[in-house]
């Protein structure tokens, strides 16, 4: 092994190098100031706004910082995209009417619903229950 050596300040081994490196990085510079200005601009641009929440879980790890929206915040986002509660109520009503018409079509609508344009299908004639899949889906939960 090499002999222990000292510099003028009496430091030995790598300590003097580490001290020198620490001293070298203390000085602020114009470049660092400009960098801080850019970073602060990023921070202000990314700063969360009231009413808009994200749901990342940081923990440790480089990839942990960027996660998609999820949970309650995600629902709120989806609802806002649809147009809020009134739009959602309208959508639900339209869906129910569609199901109702499909299950029990009014007389005047029957010819339009039939692929052949005449009459409605009767289970005995076709051998197929058009609602069987729907029923199974309900049963299976």
């Amino acid at each position, binding site marked *: 092994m090499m002999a222990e050596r000292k510099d003028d300040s009496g430091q030995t081994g790598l300590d003097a190098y580490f001290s020198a*490196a620490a*001293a070298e990085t203390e000085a602020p510079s114009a470049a660092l100031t400009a960098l801080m200005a850019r970073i602060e601009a990023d921070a202000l641009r990314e700063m969360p706004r009231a009413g808009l929440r994200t749901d990342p879980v940081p923990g440790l790890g480089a990839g942990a910082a960027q996660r998609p929206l999820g949970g309650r915040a995600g629902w709120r986002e989806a609802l806002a995209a649809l147009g809020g509660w009134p739009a959602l109520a309208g959508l639900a009503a339209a869906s129910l009417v569609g199901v109702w018409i499909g299950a029990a079509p009014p007389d005047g609508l029957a010819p339009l619903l039939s692929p052949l344009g005449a009459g409605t299908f009767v289970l005995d004639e076709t051998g197929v229950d058009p609602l069987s899949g729907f029923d199974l889906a309900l049963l299976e939960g």
Partner: protein
Amino acid sequence: MPYDAMTDRADEELLAAYARGDAAAARALTLRLTPRVFAHALRMLGGDRAEAEDVTQEALLRLWRAAPGWRPGEAQVRTWLYRVTANLCIDRLRRRRSGPALDELPEPVDDRPSASEAMQTRARADALQQALDRLPERQRQAVILRHLEGLSNPEIAQIMDIGPRAVESLTARGKRMLETLLAGRREELGYQDDG
């Protein structure tokens, strides 16, 4: 003069304030964290300032985006940032595998006996950086975190996702290699034999 206007507040507290839309917290965190992250990136990247600036900006951008979901007490901001920074640096180092050899780097010193103390300090810092660049990535990371950033072994273990004993092993091997690399430059850097 305080380093930032909120020196009495912990990083995690400031990050929570930032997540609530506090612009002053954003500024305080920027002033507090940027020099530290930049210094670490600069050392990891062999003194490449432009790349170190990019990495610093990217690491902090990830912090801003992580802020809304930060769980108090789960991770320290400083530890998290060192880890993200080191990972970004290692990605870049792996992309530019064919870095310059030590011999190709410019000689950092003027070897006149009358060179000023400041120049000698600069020369030693440059020599150390060049030697650090020769270390394997993990050794370099451990040595920088321990001896230049002044972190404890448990903190480094958390950052590097290894055990404390592995940290000790990495830093010991790293320092041995640094000693070897710097041995040939002692005379020019102002060292004298002790005996």
